[in-house]
């Protein structure tokens, strides 16, 4: 279903290391209201669609969301 690529969607440049901030930012990705949860909701909603355009766009948003 997914292909992992060893790169980020946009370049990431870390000028100052800050583990506390990094840990907080990571909850925006994997936390209870994070991007990962949102992506999975898009991918679940696609199964209840009847319009092919809606299926396609939910699939494409869901697979690109947390990158």
């Amino acid at each position: 279903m997914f292909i992992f690529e060893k790169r980020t969607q946009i370049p990431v440049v870390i000028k100052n290391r800050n583990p506390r901030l990094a840990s907080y930012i990571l909850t925006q990705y994997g936390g209870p209201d994070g991007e990962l949860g949102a992506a999975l909701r898009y991918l679940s909603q696609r199964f209840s669609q009847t319009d092919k355009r809606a299926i396609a766009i939910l699939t494409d948003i869901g697979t690109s969301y947390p990158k």
Partner: protein
Amino acid sequence: MAHNLTPRASQLLKKLSQADFYAQDLKLYLDTHPDDERALELYREAVREADACRCAFESEFYPLRASSAGKECSWDWLCGQWIL
């Protein structure tokens, strides 16, 4: 971009990112405008460009996808930057 990549590697990754991001956006547009021939043309071009950049990067540096790994008879999937 990671600091220990060569300028050439960074440049190829940047070009890949640009072409792929462009392709992703065109893909979302085409989902709701499937009859737009101009957008379709731009999409195919962006995908071609991204594929070319990926191929160039992988042949010069390290595999970006697991399916490109192992071509040199060693498990080189572990090589390269995991966290950029």
